[in-house]
C-alpha cells in the first residue's frame, strides 16, 4: 500500500510530465539545436520513471493491488513489472537516438512522441477497464505511427508509416467493436465486473465473437498472426531506434493488456461455453512462431530478419496465455511470459540499436554488408553476438533462462507439444541468428565501408543492453520471483 493512493501511478505520471516538459522546452525554443538537452530530458525522465517502478516493485506497492478511480486503474505487481520493461527500453532508445538523429530537424517532436507513446504503454499495463485499455492503446499507437514515418523525405519510412497506420486503424476498429459486443453481453467495461457477468452469459454467440475480436486487437499490438504483416514493413522502414522501441516496448504493452484482460475478464472456466480462447491462442502461438521463424530464415536483409524474428518471439510469449488450460501452475507460465518480455526488452532493443549503429556508419542492409565488421568495431560486434545468441536461446544471456521457464511451464500445464514446437523453432532460429555472427567475425571485410567515428551514446546504449542481457542470465533468479508472484496474483 502507499499514501496518497494516486502516487501508485507515479511511473505513468513521470513519463507524461517528461513529455510535457519537452513540449514546454520546444515551445520556448522551437527549432532548438540544443539536442543534448532534449535527449537529456528524455533519458532522465524515463530513468526516473524506471527508478520509481523498480522501487515500487521491490517495496511491494502493488501487493495488494492499488485500485484508483473506482477500479479504472489497477496498480499491481504485473503493472509495475511491465512498467520497468517500458521505461528501460525508452531510456535506451532515447539515449541511442541522440547520435542517430544528429543534424536532423524536428528532434523535440521525436522525443515528445516517444515519451507520449511510453506513457500510453505504461497506462495499458495498469488499465483496469476496457475503456482505459482502449484509450491507452490508442495513446501508445498514434505517436508510434508518427514516429515510424519520422523520416519524411524517405520513401521507405513514409510507406512503412502508412502501412502501420492502416493496419493499426483497422485493428483498433475491430478491437472497439469487440469491446462493444462484450459490453452488450456484460453491461460493464470494468474488467472485474465483466468477469462476474460473462459466466453463464445470456448470448454466448455475441460474447464469443466479442472475445475473438478483442483478441484480434491484441494480435495487432503484439505483432502476432493474423495482424502481423505490418511488422516487417514498419520495422524495416522506421528509424532503427524506433524499430527497437516498437518491437520491444510496444509488443510488451500489447501483452500486458492481453494478459490482464484475457485472464481476469474472460477466465477460461467461465467463458469456455461461449468461446474456447485458450484453444484459439494455442493455434495462434504455433502459427506465429512457425511463420515468424521460417520467414526470418529466408531473409537477406538483417533488419527484416530481426523483424520476422520479433514475430516469432511474440509466438513464444503467446505460450504464456496458451498454456492456461486450468491444469498445472498458471502463474508459472504466465510469469515466464513476463520474464521473457523483460529479457527480450534488452536483447532485442540492443540488436536493433546495433542496426542503428550500422546505419549510422552507412553500412548496407544485407548480411553480406556486415562481412568483417568485427575487425573495425570489435566491441559493438561482441555485443551483437551476445544479442543474437541470447535471442536464439543459447546460455550466454537471459534469453536461455526465460525460454526454459516458458517451455517448462508449458510442459507443466500439459501442453508439451507447444514446448516441442517452440524448441524446434528455437533450433531453426539459431541458423539465421548465427548468419549475422558468421558474417561479422568470419567473412572477409567488404570494400569501401568506412567506420571512422564511434558515436558515444549509441555505443553506450548498445553496451548497456548487452551487459544487462548477460547479467540477467545469473540474476534472473532475483527477478523471477516478482514475475511469478505478480502473475499468480492476477490469476487468482
Amino acid at each position: 500500500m502507499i499514501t496518497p493512493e494516486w502516487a501508485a501511478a507515479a511511473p505513468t505520471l513521470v513519463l507524461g510530465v517528461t513529455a510535457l516538459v519537452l513540449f514546454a522546452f520546444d515551445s520556448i525554443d522551437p527549432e532548438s539545436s540544443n539536442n543534448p538537452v532534449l535527449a537529456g530530458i528524455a533519458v532522465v525522465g524515463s530513468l526516473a520513471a524506471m527508478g520509481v517502478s523498480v522501487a515500487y516493485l521491490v517495496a511491494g506497492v502493488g501487493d495488494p493491488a492499488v485500485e484508483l478511480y473506482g477500479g479504472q486503474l489497477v496498480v499491481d505487481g504485473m503493472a509495475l513489472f511491465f512498467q520497468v520493461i517500458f521505461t528501460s527500453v525508452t531510456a535506451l532508445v532515447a539515449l541511442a537516438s541522440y547520435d542517430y538523429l544528429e543534424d536532423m530537424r524536428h528532434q523535440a517532436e521525436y522525443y515528445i512522441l516517444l515519451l507520449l507513446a511510453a506513457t500510453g504503454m505504461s497506462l495499458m499495463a495498469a488499465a483496469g477497464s476496457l475503456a482505459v485499455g482502449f484509450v491507452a492503446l490508442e495513446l501508445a499507437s498514434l505517436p508510434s505511427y508518427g514516429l515510424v514515418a519520422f523520416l519524411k523525405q524517405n520513401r521507405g519510412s513514409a510507406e512503412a508509416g502508412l502501412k502501420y497506420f492502416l493496419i493499426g486503424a483497422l485493428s483498433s476498429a475491430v478491437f472497439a467493436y469487440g469491446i462493444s459486443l462484450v459490453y452488450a453481453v456484460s453491461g460493464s467495461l470494468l474488467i472485474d465486473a465483466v468477469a462476474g457477468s460473462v459466466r453463464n452469459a445470456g448470448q454466448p454467440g455475441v460474447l464469443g465473437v466479442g472475445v475473438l475480436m478483442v483478441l484480434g486487437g491484441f494480435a495487432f499490438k503484439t505483432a502476432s498472426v493474423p495482424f502481423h504483416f505490418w511488422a516487417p514493413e514498419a520495422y524495416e522502414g522506421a528509424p532503427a531506434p524506433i524499430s527497437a522501441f516498437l518491437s520491444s516496448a510496444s509488443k510488451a504493452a500489447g501483452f500486458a493488456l492481453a494478459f490482464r484482460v484475457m485472464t481476469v475478464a474472460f477466465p477460461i472456466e467461465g467463458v469456455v461455453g461461449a468461446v474456447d480462447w485458450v484453444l484459439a491462442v494455442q493455434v495462434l502461438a504455433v502459427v506465429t512462431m512457425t511463420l515468424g521463424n521460417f520467414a526470418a530464415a529466408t531473409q537477406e536483409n538483417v533488419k527484416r530478419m530481426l523483424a520476422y524474428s520479433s514475430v516469432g518471439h511474440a509466438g513464444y510469449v503467446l505460450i504464456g496465455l496458451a498454456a492456461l488450460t486450468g491444469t498445472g501452475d498458471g502463474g508459472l507460465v504466465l510469469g515466464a511470459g513476463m520474464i521473457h518480455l523483460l529479457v527480450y526488452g534488452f536483447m532485442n532493443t540492443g540488436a536493433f540499436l546495433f542496426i542503428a549503429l550500422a546505419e549510422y556508419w552507412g553500412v548496407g542492409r544485407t548480411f553480406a554488408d556486415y562481412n568483417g565488421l568485427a575487425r573495425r568495431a570489435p566491441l559493438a560486434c561482441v555485443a551483437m553476438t551476445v544479442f543474437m545468441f541470447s535471442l536464439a536461446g543459447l546460455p550466454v544471456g537471459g534469453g536461455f533462462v526465460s525460454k526454459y521457464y516458458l517451455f517448462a511451464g508449458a510442459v507443466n500445464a500439459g501442453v508439451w507439444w507447444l514446448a516441442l514446437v517452440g524448441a524446434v523453432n528455437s533450433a531453426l532460429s539459431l541458423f539465421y541468428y548465427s548468419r549475422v555472427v558468421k558474417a561479422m567475425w568470419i567473412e572477409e571485410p567488404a570494400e569501401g565501408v568506412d567506420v571512422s567515428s564511434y558515436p558515444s551514446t549509441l555505443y553506450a546504449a548498445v553496451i548497456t543492453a548487452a551487459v544487462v542481457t548477460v547479467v540477467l542470465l545469473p540474476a534472473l533468479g532475483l527477478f523471477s520471483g516478482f514475475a511469478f508472484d505478480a502473475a499468480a496474483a492476477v490469476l487468482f
Partner: protein
Amino acid sequence: MAVSVQYYLILSAFVFCVGLFGILTRRNALLFLMSVELMLNAANINFVAFSYYHGNLTGQVFSLFTMALAAAEVAVGIGIILVLYRNFADVDVTKATTLRW
C-alpha cells in the same frame, strides 16, 4: 414502442461489414479512412443501444471517447497520407512498394 435491441445489433453488424468491405476493396487511402470510420461508428451504435438496454451510462460515455479517438486517428492518418503523397505523388495504397508488401 421501442425498437428491440437485437435490431441494433444487426444494424451495427451491417455497418461494420460495409466498412470492412470498403477496406478490403478500396485502394484510395482516403476511402480507407472513411471505411475505418464506419467500423468505429458501428461500435458506437452498439454502445449507445446497449447503454439504454442495460440502463447505465457507461456505453454512451465510451462512445464519446471513441468519437474523439476516431478524430485523433484521422488527424494522424491524414498527416501520414500527406507525407505519402509528397513521396509517391499518389494516395493509392498499392503504389507504395519500396519495401516488399
